[in-house]
């Protein structure tokens, strides 16, 4: 089931997806944000577990722009410094949707296996 899904929707699966990329897309799915707001939102979403740094963030933003998954929404100058807001594109939305579905399917599978394990072993845990 999972394999069939993976092949059918392969074109929407993010290439070389990692957690920061997934989280950045998720942050931008809510509203357009500038770089530092993305860092804060990711930290908030993960309960402080993931706090992106500037080098990692802009490498990911540049790659996602190159892949057409995000784009610049607007720019403003704050304290004589450029602030650029990024937003998700249609392709980015589809990619995030497909990646979410893939993760959900994997999580469902893992939960099913764990349930079966508990049933088989009468609730005993090793």
């Amino acid at each position: 089931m999972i394999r069939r899904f993976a092949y059918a929707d392969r074109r929407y699966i993010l290439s070389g997806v990692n957690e920061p990329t997934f989280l950045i897309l998720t942050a931008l799915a809510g509203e357009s944000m500038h770089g530092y707001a993305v860092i804060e939102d990711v930290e908030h979403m993960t309960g402080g577990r993931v706090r992106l740094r500037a080098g990692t963030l802009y490498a990911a933003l540049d790659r996602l722009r190159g892949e057409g998954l995000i784009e610049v929404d607007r720019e403003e100058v704050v304290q004589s410094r450029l602030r650029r807001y990024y937003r998700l594109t249609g392709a980015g939305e589809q990619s995030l949707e497909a990646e979410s579905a893939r993760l959900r399917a994997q999580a469902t599978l893992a939960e099913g296996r764990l349930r079966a394990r508990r049933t088989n072993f009468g609730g005993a845990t090793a």
Partner: protein
Amino acid sequence: MTEIRYRRLLALYPRHFRQEYGDEMLGVLMADPRPGAAQAFDVVRGAIAAHLRLMVTGQSRAARTVAIFGAMLLFAVALRRLMPELRALQLYPEYAQPVEPATWARLAGWGVALVAAYLGWRLLGAVGATVGLAGEIAAPARFYLETPATVLYAYWLIVAAVIVLIAGLVAAGRGGPEPRGLPWVAAAGTLLIAQGSFYPRALSLFGTVLFLAAAVLVAVAVFQQEPEIRARLLCWAAPVIVTVPLVQWGFGGLIKYNMGHPDSLQLISPLQWAVLVLVPLAAFAGVSVLSRRDIPGLTTSRR
């Protein structure tokens, strides 16, 4: 960390990345309350990654052109070498040596690599190019212990074969557009075959003219590419081009010594082998960096 220090760290990024994101990154770095070594390390790591990405980004289209053009020219060179042997077999069957299996393998390998590169079949292309490369190595290697210069003189072909093999592996897959200038390269290949078959350069001035005309046709094909593809073609060609002066001047002494002392032959030393491998690699990296320095509007991943 102060703004000046962050600016120094950001200077490590490629120029176009810096122009695109430098100001924003500086704002984020200054707003981030986490100073220190980890922040600096992350910026340096990002700069290295940006340079590496810049080196490989957009190569797949150029690589497809390299794989098709390269396989076509190597096929022509293989056929050019085979034709005189076939003619000799036809004219003097009692004296001529039969064609070596490696010669046939080389021709077949490049033929397969060419068709596969055109159709975008990477696996088949890799198989064909590997066979072709093996043929390019086997042909001069047979004479290595008698005349090491044979390997040196054929070294540009071996490097070209490696380049075509790698280009085929990273080339854009099926459905890629036909590269510009393909008829010009096909014409160049035809001239090379005609020159090798009927007008050997050692015997005919017209042969040299045909050879130069083929080089001009290839140059025309390269000139017809878009500027950024042309710059990348130069990167791929650099390792092959650099082997000519490398062998000429770097190994001239060895070749001359062996010509004068057939009784005490000097083979290529491990250090010299290392030079033969590293110089083409350095040429690729060097031209790759230089070709990106002044291309206006070339951002890190927009191409």
